[in-house]
């Protein structure tokens, strides 16, 4: 198998190869390379290799101008997972509470509607998107910029394990390849390449998430951007995308429409009258507990009870003392 040899050669030389090298070194490497042995080694580690020439290789990814020679897979899911309709959710690692919450609820709702949520397992928006999808018992795939055995970043090791349990952790780099700064932009082309649409949740200017968006635009894929506060540097990149003509995303439905998927009926909320009043106020704008108490005239104790009821019903979330409605 030519692709596996290519990927292994790239890993051994710490290089990113676009096509097959014509060098004598590669010829020598290929001559001494036994793909059957290598595949067996991978299988022993619990990994798989999906070559570009394999009919199961995702069509969308094969169509980009620089597809990887193959993908190393870790996880329980079938390779057919990658061929299903997928959406990329990307954004800043250092994101605001707002960005985290949007990424989470988008991940949850898009996965619940049946889309595969693809992201990069980075901190911040990426991790939240994966978590949202897992919360909805949906499928999600993480694309790494290092070997699939390399839990990077270490903080998301447990998350990677959870993703592998029901979805896939994929990488074009052979197991053992260490993360390097130049590998992440290359990884982003796979994130965008696997999906028909890419959602940028929150990005600074010159953020890595914009690289994913650029790849998606180059390949003629749909790009959504979540509008952010115009005064916030954290949203400068995503707002700039909107100015350039990206589709503004206001709810998960916007994405589902472009895939021609009907949104699942939202579950009817069964909450008490007090909680319903509070929910109405939270839907107007996010607010802290004291602001809500003033607006609704409830005592601090009563209000806390109502907010917990809403949290348990999945209608609001709280972060850093601010309550927000889930769309």
């Amino acid at each position, binding site marked *: 198998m030519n692709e596996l040899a290519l990927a292994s050669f790239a890993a051994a030389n710490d290089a990113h190869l676009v096509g097959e090298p014509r060098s004598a070194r590669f010829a020598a490497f290929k001559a001494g390379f036994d793909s059957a042995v290598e595949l067996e080694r991978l299988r022993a580690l619990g990994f798989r290799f999906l070559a570009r020439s394999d009919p199961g290789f995702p069509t969308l990814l094969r169509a980009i101008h620089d597809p990887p020679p193959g993908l190393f897979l870790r996880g329980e899911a079938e390779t057919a997972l990658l061929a299903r309709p997928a959406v990329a959710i990307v954004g800043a690692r250092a994101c605001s509470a707002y960005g985290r919450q949007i990424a989470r609820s988008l991940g949850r709702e898009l996965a619940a509607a049946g889309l595969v949520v693809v992201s990069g397992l980075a901190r911040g928006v990426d991790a939240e998107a994966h978590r949202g999808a897992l919360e909805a018992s949906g499928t999600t795939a993480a694309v790494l910029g290092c070997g699939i055995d390399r839990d990077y970043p270490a903080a998301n090791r447990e998350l990677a394990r959870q993703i592998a349990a029901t979805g896939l952790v994929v990488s074009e780099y052979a197991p053992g390849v260490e993360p390097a700064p130049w590998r992440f932009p290359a990884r982003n082309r796979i994130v965008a390449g696997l999906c028909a649409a890419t959602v940028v949740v929150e990005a600074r200017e010159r953020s890595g998430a914009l690289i994913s968006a650029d790849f998606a635009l180059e390949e003629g894929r749909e790009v959504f951007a979540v509008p952010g506060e115009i005064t916030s540097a954290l949203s400068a990149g995503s707002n700039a995308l909107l100015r350039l003509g990206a589709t503004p995303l206001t709810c998960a439905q916007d994405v589902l429409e472009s895939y021609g998927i009907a949104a699942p009926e939202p579950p009817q909320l069964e909450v008490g009258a007090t909680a319903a009043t509070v929910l109405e106020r939270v839907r107007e704008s996010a607010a802290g507990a004291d602001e809500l108490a003033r607006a609704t005239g409830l005592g601090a104790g009563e209000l806390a009870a109502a907010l917990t009821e809403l*949290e348990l019903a999945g209608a609001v979330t709280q972060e850093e*003392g601010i309550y927000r409605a889930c769309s």
Partner: protein
Amino acid sequence: MTHALVGLESRRVEVEAHIDGGLPGFAIVGLADRACAEAKHRVRSGICSAQLEWPLKRITVNLAPAGLRKEGSGFDLSIALAVLAASQQVSPERLAEHAAIGELALDGRVRPVRGAFAVAEGARRSGLDRIICAPESACEAELGGVEAIPVRHLAEAVAYLRGELRPPPVDPPDEAAEPDPPDLADVRGQERARRALELAATGGHNLLLAGPPGTGKTMLGRRLPSILPPLEPREALEVMRIHSVAGVLPPEQPLITRRPFRAPHHSASTAAIVGGGAGPRPGEASLAHRGVLLLDELPEFQRPVLEALRQPLEDGMISIARAAGQALFPARFQLVATMNLCPCAGRGDPAAECSCSPQRLAAFRDKLSRALLDRFDLIVTVPRPQAEELAAGPSEPSAPVRERVAAGRLRLSRVLPARTAEADELLSRAVERLPLSGRGRARVARVARTAAALAGADAVLPEHVAEALAYRSPKELSV
């Protein structure tokens, strides 16, 4: 006769003096430390300055039991009186009816030393009902349950023992002189945090206030004592004993009725917080016994300090082991802590932006071990108050809150309200739905009970559980 302090315990020490012929000399035996052994110079000068006779003979003073380590200068007065009794300058029989504590100045004046309250208590237990001490210690000693004989000078003590002088009666301590703690009326807005403070005061829960700087976290924490009920007499004795041994009991106002409030700075060492030293002294945690320990900027404390606090938080005691033995200090305090949400303090503040790297943020949170966070029943994120809240009029003062707290405490002390079936069901659902550990579940159950008691309900209803859940550990504090 006097008493030595071992930790908080006061042990009876008999001071014997023997005078016999031979080369003039003065020796103190019985495991005295340096400050105590130096007593011989002070005692000798003191006796000479008091125009009494220093026997030019061979003098041996024994501090019994000889195996107990004695430290400090509090034995001076007893040694001087024992020497005077041995040389028949005062009546040994009359002296034997008294305990004595105090340091001697070179001119014979009597100076106060720490621990007079504990020593007086010990004297009472040994069946003595009078203690000779410095006037500054008299009030403290009287609280220990014995009659204090205040003497300014060694000569006065001798005159008293010879029956030539009646020392003035000791003024009873003035209860009203304790300064009032700051009042809740000063806090604008912050309804949720105030509510949490009320719950904490009622149920004796530990409280963690998190949020950006300038939101009034410390201000709130400092106002917890104002809504706590006063100490019960038995508790007050415990507190006075600790404060007396630590030497922080104000001499003019030794009576404590208000709950202690201690707020050590975050640079404090482990020994300063939990106690320590060669002859162990109580630390801040023990000084806050039956009161409030405020740790401002919790993550700024050294990690060993925070970990050392886990033992007292669990069983209300600190045991300090030393080569010479073990000292037990009670430390049943209520912990209130404040912290920012990130090292740059920008997080949670709409007007600022957090500039912390993920690594820095992780290091910051790593400082608070899960085990420590688990000790906080109530965790409240305090957001920045809005301008209109700050402009609003004064808030509810402490007095009505204190009454509600007292009523709630009374209810909790009588019968613990049980959860209804619906409340149980809600709690189980929450454990599934939210990241809530077994310990977290127990915490929520405790707080729910307090909420029910405050509401005057006979059982814990779902709304009480729901409210308690709102004060659980937020996800941004877990790594």
